[in-house]
């Protein structure tokens, strides 16, 4: 049986088109895979293991009696203050995310996106609610080296070593969205984060919170995240 010429030509053309489409699809898949890999947060969520293990004091909350108790843990801590702050807060949230936690909060260390440490201007009034919430873009975070802290862009001189610091803690949206709702549980989370920061970085006297880089009214419907917290409040809350 003879196949007509036009059918042979059509078959060849369709075969070539199929092969070409397969090649294009394969390339598109590779590109999409590469985009996914590029979009992942490659920042370390744990303190580097090469750092020397040091003792860190964590204020661990307990929902049953509303208390916060000091617990000393040995963990590798980087020298960089911002990374150090992130490491101790990450350890605290790992404890909260563990089964049987006294203050169960899902999320763990990956809930802390960044911690910025900023010198507090002399005119700052602690305890007052700022009308203009701070955002990550208000200041310029300078890479930290050997105990230096980020400075505002218009600062002329490096801050004094004793200058009190404002810590800006940037949390993930999933952490805030999945946080248990309640006045006590949200307050304990905020105060234990503030107290843990102060216990390990005594120069940190004020703390502000961002969620995904933006100001947010409350953590999970109760605790105010739009204000600046004093670490002395957290210390005073300890029994």
């Amino acid at each position, binding site marked *: 049986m003879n196949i007509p010429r036009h059918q042979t030509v059509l078959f060849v053309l369709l075969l070539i088109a199929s092969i070409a489409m397969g090649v294009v699809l394969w390339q598109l898949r590779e590109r999409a895979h590469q985009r996914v890999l590029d979009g992942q947060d490659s920042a370390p969520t744990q303190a580097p293991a090469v750092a020397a293990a040091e003792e860190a004091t964590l204020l661990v909350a307990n929902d049953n009696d509303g208390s916060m108790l000091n617990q000393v843990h040995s963990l590798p801590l980087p020298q960089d203050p911002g990374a150090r702050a992130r490491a101790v807060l990450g350890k605290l949230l790992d404890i909260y995310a563990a089964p049987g936690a006294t203050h169960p909060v899902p999320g763990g260390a990956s809930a802390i996106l960044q911690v910025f440490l900023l010198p507090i201007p002399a005119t700052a009034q602690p305890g007052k609610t700022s009308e203009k919430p701070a955002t990550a873009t208000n200041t310029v975070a300078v890479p930290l080296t050997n105990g230096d802290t980020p400075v505002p862009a218009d600062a002329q001189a490096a801050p004094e070593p004793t200058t009190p610091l404002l810590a800006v803690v940037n949390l993930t949206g999933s952490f805030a969205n999945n946080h248990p709702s309640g006045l*006590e*549980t949200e307050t304990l989370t905020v105060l234990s984060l503030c107290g843990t920061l102060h216990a390990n970085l005594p120069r940190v006297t004020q703390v502000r919170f961002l969620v995904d880089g933006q100001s947010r009214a409350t953590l999970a419907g109760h605790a105010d995240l739009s204000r600046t917290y004093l670490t002395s*409040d957290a210390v005073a809350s300890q029994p």
Partner: protein
Amino acid sequence: MRIQSPEVSLLRATFESRLKNRPRRVLGCFTALVLATLAVTGSIAVAQAPPAPQAPQSRFTVVLDAAHGGDDTGGHFKNGQLEKSLTLAFTTKLRSLLAARGINVVTTRDSDATVDDNHRIEVANHAQALACLSLHAAESGSGVHLFASSLSPAPTAHLYPWKTAQAVWVTRSLALTGDLNSALQHASVAVTLGRTALPTLDSMACPAVAIEISPERIPESATIKSAVDDPGYQTRVAEAIAAALLVWRSEAHQP
């Protein structure tokens, strides 16, 4: 002096018609005069008397703020209940108890409606209440959590910053917290005290306390003894709060 009052004339005419002789008429006129004077002065006294002084209890106003509502559901409980429903039910129960004790109650919401925080604060601040209670419910923790504002005390001023008005009242709020704590402990309810940064609480210009009701748990095992929606538990807590407010009322009216 001739008395022209129609009441006096009527009385005198009545007595005159019944008296035949003059001495009796004189006596009758005198009696009528005395009676009329008593009647007239008595009626005037009643009309001009100032309204009975209101008992101090009737001026004692308490604001009950049932947290959340409408689109703002608050916390989600494992049994499917929502915080907004529990706070509204508890507010209704507490309002009845307080009204039965002669306390004037103002609520920020009476139904499942979305209420803006600023509206809640406006209601509370316009009520000029001697106690403002923000009512919450949670599944975590144990017993009742009492929170006063974490703002530092500030001196009295004519104008208060909206977001930190509670700073002027925080000392009295702590005193109110103490009364609530005593009453709840007397009712064998576990109490946790704390300070918090709650936007509605921080803006209230009255002695204000946030009350969060959590399940009652057995201390050793943390097993739930009474759930938040347990009617008996709710009544016990509400009665303790009402008792504390009666104590607070007596303290508030002391010179």
